[in-house]
């Protein structure tokens, strides 16, 4: 064979071998298919319930862990989970939970009240840095415990955690000494340099918090001891273990949705032994993690899938019908729709807007699409610290000149409802308040009164939104509506997500979009964001009466009176209009007709443990036959 053609053959051979090798390397284990596959949007941040937020995490954590209560898949009522029953005191401040004897961790050990106690302490502990920690601040003294040294006052009972060697597992706690805080000495101006004088067993000892590394390397200042942290004595926090199967939780204020919060995933228990043996974040690896939920994590491939398999230690395993579930991580919405359409996925949570419109108008109507409202609002924030938005008449004029119908019927595709208030309909016992709908005549009058007749002299404001086709279209339509009705010219400005959030937070905007999804079915999750000093209130607006009403609602134990307070508060908000409500979102799930146990509900929450597959039934599944409550 001539040399040149031998070279060619050789190079083709090399390529073929390379291709074959990669094929053998990465495709030799073809996965057996799952019973149920769904697109879980983006890759989850962690399997550690305490540190995550967000819907994708919610779906997975709810499948692999279980809290004291869990939420009913249709009504979202808290139903027994780890706790088989509970008693609530008459003042609604004390909850006594009775745990199930048969509840087990995936390593076979029983789940006890100590596990809940441990997990709650870990969740609240400052070193865990749980983003959702404030959801447990309803528990007595939990807020002060969470704040670490900042939550302490002289005279408090405190716990001093001593340093551990650097090589100790990072999730272990140092030795705990309990005593009374006598005084705090400020060494330098920096807050980390404080020395705490604590009385322990009759002796007063000086402690200075520092991290383990510097404690190991440096000697403490004279007459001072190092410690890891000083916290409120956890025994002051309203969580008591009465016996291994009984737990008592005491609250600061009556909190009607407290049982719902116990079914909220960040407060789910974790296994102390597992966490402390492996350390963070290794304990949350599929090969290490110990869970107590209906499913266990079989494996995790980053940005590919999480495979869940039915747990054989779960107390209620006989009711769990799906054996293997795949949660795919797909970031592109069009791609996930393609996967649904070609049968790779049985459930996708969203379809791109324009496609959704086509799907909704198909004849005969599709049997796998049933948009339904849930607790979430799309609105604009007005920066009330800037002229002319500091003038209430201008804000009202802008609101009155809006034609929300045009947006919901011509632009949005999933049957979204125009919003005249902040709190969406669908919360039991609450009557949503409404601002006046479209009234251009009045809007022009108000604007003239504010000194801008027919929009003359009105500064050129801009609408800020995060880069997204739908937000852009809405902003453009609103810009045109204001131009048409008020004669003012507004521009639009888009920013990429993280930049947009930073601008909003620093109030570097005139008008900005925001979407808000309720964490629990209560008006508080929407209304407390506009109290003075709230981190979420980036409008500069505040109102003493509003603050009073929200605070009063928090302390009120009579449900009717409580809702009354919220309604009055929302009315103030809608009179003063630091926000312009635009529409209430609807869910956009596409669910195959053979998927059963999937209900529309007001939180767009669909626990995996409630699902099953039935390919023989001709009847419409629960998803198509349920409407959301509103």
């Amino acid at each position, binding site marked *: 064979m001539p040399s040149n053609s031998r070279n060619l053959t050789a190079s083709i051979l090399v390529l073929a071998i390379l291709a074959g090798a990669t094929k053998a390397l990465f495709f030799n284990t073809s996965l057996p298919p799952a019973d149920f596959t769904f697109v879980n949007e983006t890759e989850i941040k962690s399997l550690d319930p305490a540190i995550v937020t967000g819907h994708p995490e919610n779906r997975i954590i709810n499948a692999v862990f279980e809290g004291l209560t869990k939420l009913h898949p249709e009504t979202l009522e808290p139903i027994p989970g780890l706790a088989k029953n509970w008693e609530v005191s008459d003042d609604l401040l004390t909850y006594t939970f009775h745990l199930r004897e048969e509840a087990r961790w995936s390593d076979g050990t029983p789940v006890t009240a100590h596990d809940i106690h441990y997990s709650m302490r870990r969740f609240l502990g400052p070193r865990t840095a749980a983003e959702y920690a404030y959801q447990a601040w309803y528990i007595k003294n939990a807020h002060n415990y969470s704040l670490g040294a900042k939550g302490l006052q002289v005279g408090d009972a405190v716990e001093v955690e001593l340093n551990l060697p650097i090589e100790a597992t990072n999730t272990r706690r140092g030795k705990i000494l309990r005593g009374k805080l006598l005084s705090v000495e400020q060494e330098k101006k920096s807050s980390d340099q404080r020395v705490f004088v604590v009385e322990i067993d009759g002796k007063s000892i000086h402690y200075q918090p520092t991290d383990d590394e510097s404690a190991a390397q440096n000697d403490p200042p004279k007459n001072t001891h190092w410690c890891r942290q000083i916290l409120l004595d956890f025994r002051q926090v309203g969580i008591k273990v009465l016996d291994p199967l009984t737990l008592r939780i005491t609250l600061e204020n009556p909190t009607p949705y407290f049982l719902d919060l116990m079914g909220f995933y960040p407060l789910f228990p974790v296994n102390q032994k597992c966490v402390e043996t492996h350390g963070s974040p290794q304990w949350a690896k599929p090969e290490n993690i110990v869970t107590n939920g209906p499913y266990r994590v079989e494996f995790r491939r980053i940005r590919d899938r999480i495979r869940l398999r039915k747990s054989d230690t779960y107390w209620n395993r006989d009711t769990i019908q799906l054996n293997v579930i795949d949660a795919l991580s797909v970031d592109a919405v069009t791609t996930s729709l393609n996967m649904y359409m070609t049968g790779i996925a049985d459930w996708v949570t969203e379809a791109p807007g324009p496609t959704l419109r086509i799907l909704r108008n198909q004849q005969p109507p599709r049997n796998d699409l049933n948009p339904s409202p849930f607790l979430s609002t799309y609105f604009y924030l007005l920066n009330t610290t800037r002229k002319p938005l500091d003038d209430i008449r201008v804000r009202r004029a802008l609101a009155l000149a809006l034609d929300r119908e045009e947006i919901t019927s011509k632009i949005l595709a999933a049957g979204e409802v125009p919003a005249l208030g902040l709190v969406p309909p669908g919360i039991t016992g609450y009557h949503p308040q409404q601002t006046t709908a479209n009234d251009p005549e009045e809007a022009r009058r108000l604007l003239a009164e504010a000194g801008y007749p027919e929009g003359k002299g009105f500064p050129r404001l801009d609408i800020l939104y995060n880069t997204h086709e739908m937000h852009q279209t809405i902003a453009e339509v609103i810009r045109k509506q204001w131009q048409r009705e008020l004669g003012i010219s507004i521009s639009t400005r888009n920013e990429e997500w993280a930049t947009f959030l*930073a601008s909003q937070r620093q109030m570097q905007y005139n008008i900005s979009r925001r979407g808000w999804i309720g964490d629990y079915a209560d008006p508080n999750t929407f209304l407390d964001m506009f109290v003075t000093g709230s981190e979420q209130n980036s409008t500069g607006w505040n109102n003493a009466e509003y603050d009073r009403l929200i605070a009063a609602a928090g302390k009120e134990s009579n449900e009717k009176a409580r809702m009354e307070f919220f309604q009055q508060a929302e009315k103030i908000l809608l009179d003063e209009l630091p926000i312009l409500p635009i529409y209430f979102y609807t869910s956009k799930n596409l669910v195959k007709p053979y998927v059963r146990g999937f209900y529309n509900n007001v939180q767009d929450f669909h626990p995996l443990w409630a699902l099953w597959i039935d390919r023989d039934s001709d009847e419409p599944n629960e998803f198509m036959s349920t409407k959301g409550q509103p």
Partner: protein
Amino acid sequence: MIPFCFKRLLWMLLTLWVVFTLSFFLMRAVPGGPFDSERVLEPEIERLLKKRYNLDKSLFEQYRIELGNYARGDFGHSFKLTDYTVNEVIAQGLPISVTLGTFALVFALVLGLLAGIVSAVSRGGWADFTLMLIATTGVALPNFVIAGICIILFVFMIPIFPAAGWGNFDQLILPAFCLGAPYAAYVARIARTSMLDVLSQDHIRTARAKGVGPVRVVVVHALRGAMLPVVSFLGPAVAGILTGSLVVEQVFAIPGMGSHFVQAAIARDYTLAMGLVMLYTVLLFSMNWIVDLSYSVLDPRVKLN
């Protein structure tokens, strides 16, 4: 050759340091941070999070710590995929991107060479015209447009390939083709030009005059010479394919480095984004290095210095 490699290594370290420094400060100059979310964090919780990730320290102090970690080979934990270290994310993502890239390269070479040879041989004919039209279009079209067309054609109209995902061999074909297509077009044009060049040379005419058949002339006598420019294009092509799979990986939901990189940038995952930038730098640099080395092997006239 040894001093050459040594020099290149020094240059690479210098480049890495410059890229690291630039990326570090650019990333932090962009507004927004890893802990920004629609729900603003309680200030105490945010303070604790920042402390844990050293973000409470001065920018220069952070830079010093990070650089020190990198010098020790510790890329740290991902900010947004907190269960994983950056090394673990790369360990899972790199083989996937390499597999995808290898197949894309195979597509690029096989299709490109075939098209180039055929159009060179039938120069001026309809085959030449059609193939070069396709090649020009292939160079001009971005790969996500090709991906869209391929999905409509081969997923929905003629359902022979899965829409997206990773794990089975058939899931690899479409993305590899879309990723390789622009490079196939380049290869076709390069192969055609060099083939035409070689076919007009004396030794080919001699071979023909001696009665060698047309297939044998092309495959045996002309191809070797025509391959050289194609081989020199392989270096940039490999680097381009490995670092250019961002969009294709997103469209086909492939958990490779491209997906990680895009999401890390969007979510301000400083550590993961930095790790991937450094990895891409090393890949690009070593590809160029290998090309330079291969020149000296293929062509004795090239001196390394």
